[in-house]
């Protein structure tokens, strides 16, 4: 029964016997046993991991809903394929590149561990566990892999409706095997950014901005969709299914509890589980702040609320709180998220002014709100310095832009990046896949 969930212990106990605890023996100690800590930490990774996994479905629905139906099947193919490739290549190269565990080939800059990730033996024992005092390697691998895949998902939305399938997938391979893990190692692998005091709890910069920067460079090199910008005006190309876009947003929102909550990386102590609880609450309220801010702002600016902006606003709120979901109060978390929502409302048309065609708004959501979130850490975390935060943002940004640009250009030169005009006009589904997402509906 739901009564008095907040009441103090004694009361709680008097309430419990009803539930048959009357004849329980004395409590065995205070802290959780070492095994229990190991199990609970691993469990956090596993639960957080499947939640972040589900974000792949969220990205797929969001993007499928925001592209025109003639490109939906292709967008779905890209999302399925990129997740599969991320899973394989993060395993083959990325994981050890990201977590050198102190073994560097260039101290703090480049991992010294090469080759595929290896898990603990079946039925490993305490003494044989890689890190008995902490958590199982498999759970950590599972959790970290999902972050890598999320980074790749960010890129596909921006470049939708015009990028060729295979060139895009090749970029994904390099992003997930090298670009993301390498830059991530500087912070989460204990590299020089970590040493420099750069703070990024769950990855506003390490994950979202990296995806955002890669998307930005890609969008610029790829150019806008045909007809998107006509004699100075921006021509809207409404998404084909806002219901699925909304579903995708809700799924991403849920996944984010795993994304940020799991990034506490431990649940085996009172302090840790209380922190995970704070993070869940802050993550939710930041998303709410972002959605409501976008709702009100579009109502004021355009006299009508814009659902797609509300969706982007919620996501921007989530990205904004990702760099520091623990230390803010609920109120501050709401504000940090709301600022993210505001950013989106202004950044989306701004990008259009610059003729940068971002089909789903991934750049405002993941890159710009990601930068904001990374800076916002200083508001609530005394360990953070604006200098260190800027340093991290710039270093990661510069690296990602340069690396992505090189890769995009090499691909463009060699195999070409963009479908031909007729294919783009008729839709990628018919031309590149020979398959329509909605074959029965008569669309133009």
């Amino acid at each position, binding site marked *: 029964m739901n009564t008095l969930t907040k009441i103090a212990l004694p009361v709680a106990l008097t309430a419990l016997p009803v539930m048959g605890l009357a004849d329980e023996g004395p409590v065995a100690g205070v802290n959780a046993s070492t095994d229990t800590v190991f199990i609970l930490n691993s469990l956090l990774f596993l639960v957080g991991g499947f939640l972040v996994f589900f974000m792949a479905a969220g990205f797929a629905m969001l993007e499928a809903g925001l592209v025109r139906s003639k490109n939906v099947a292709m967008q779905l193919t890209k999302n399925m394929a990129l997740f599969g490739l991320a899973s394989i290549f993060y395993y083959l190269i990325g994981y050890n590149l990201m977590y050198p565990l102190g073994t560097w080939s260039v101290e703090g800059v480049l991992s010294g561990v090469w080759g595929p990730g290896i898990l603990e033996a079946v039925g490993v024992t305490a003494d044989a566990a890689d890190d008995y005092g902490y958590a199982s390697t498999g759970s950590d691998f599972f959790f970290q892999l999902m972050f890598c895949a999320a980074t790749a998902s960010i890129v596909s939305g921006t470049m939708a409706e015009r990028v060729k399938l295979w060139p895009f997938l090749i970029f994904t391979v390099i992003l997930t095997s090298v670009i993301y893990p390498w830059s991530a190692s500087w912070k989460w692998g204990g590299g020089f950014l970590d040493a420099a005091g750069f703070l990024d709890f769950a990855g506003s910069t390490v994950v979202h901005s990296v995806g955002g920067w890669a998307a930005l460079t890609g969008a610029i090199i790829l150019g806008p969709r045909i007809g998107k910008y006509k004699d100075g*005006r921006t021509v809207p190309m*409404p998404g084909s299914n806002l219901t699925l876009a909304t579903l995708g947003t809700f799924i991403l929102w849920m996944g984010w509890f795993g994304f940020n909550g799991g990034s506490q990386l431990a649940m085996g102590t009172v302090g840790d589980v209380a922190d995970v609880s704070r993070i869940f609450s802050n993550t939710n309220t930041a998303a709410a702040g972002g959605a409501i801010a976008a709702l009100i702002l579009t109502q004021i600016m*355009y006299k*009508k609320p*814009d659902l797609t902006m509300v969706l982007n606003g919620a996501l921007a709120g989530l990205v904004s709180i990702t760099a520091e979901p623990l230390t803010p109060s609920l109120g501050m978390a709401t504000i940090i998220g709301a600022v993210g929502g505001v950013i989106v409302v202004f950044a*989306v*048309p701004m990008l259009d002014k610059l003729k940068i065609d971002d089909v789903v708004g991934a750049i405002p959501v993941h890159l710009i709100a990601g930068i904001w979130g990374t800076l916002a850490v200083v508001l609530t975390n005394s360990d953070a310095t604006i200098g260190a935060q800027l340093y991290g943002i710039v270093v990661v940004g510069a690296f990602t832009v340069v690396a992505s640009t090189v890769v995009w250009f090499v691909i463009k030169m060699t195999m070409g990046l963009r479908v031909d005009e007729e294919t783009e006009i008729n839709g990628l589904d018919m031309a590149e896949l020979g398959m329509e997402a909605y074959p029965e509906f008569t669309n133009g």
Partner: protein
Amino acid sequence: MKLIIATIKPFKLEEVREALTGIGVRGMMVTEIKGFGSQSGHTEIYRGAEYAVNFVPKVKLELVVPATMADQVVETITKTAQTGKIGDGKIFVLDVQQAVRVRTGETDADAI
């Protein structure tokens, strides 16, 4: 025989159909279309970009009736579909040379 093409506001469809059945029309073809006309052209905003909505959802009726019945049909549609607000639609009348009922092969008058 005459082919009567009428484009009306979607929510009027049921009413018009009933009225036509009332005067003895036994069949028609209905298509969902987008209409362009004086009603069109108000502007909307999508993700911060203004655009003009040029097409309005309409329903198109096509029915073939004996020449003698045409005027009555046109009248009935006009009466029933009218709201007085812009965008009520149009009715067009064309000559039909021949009609066939697929099921029986009957032609012309017997076909409709």
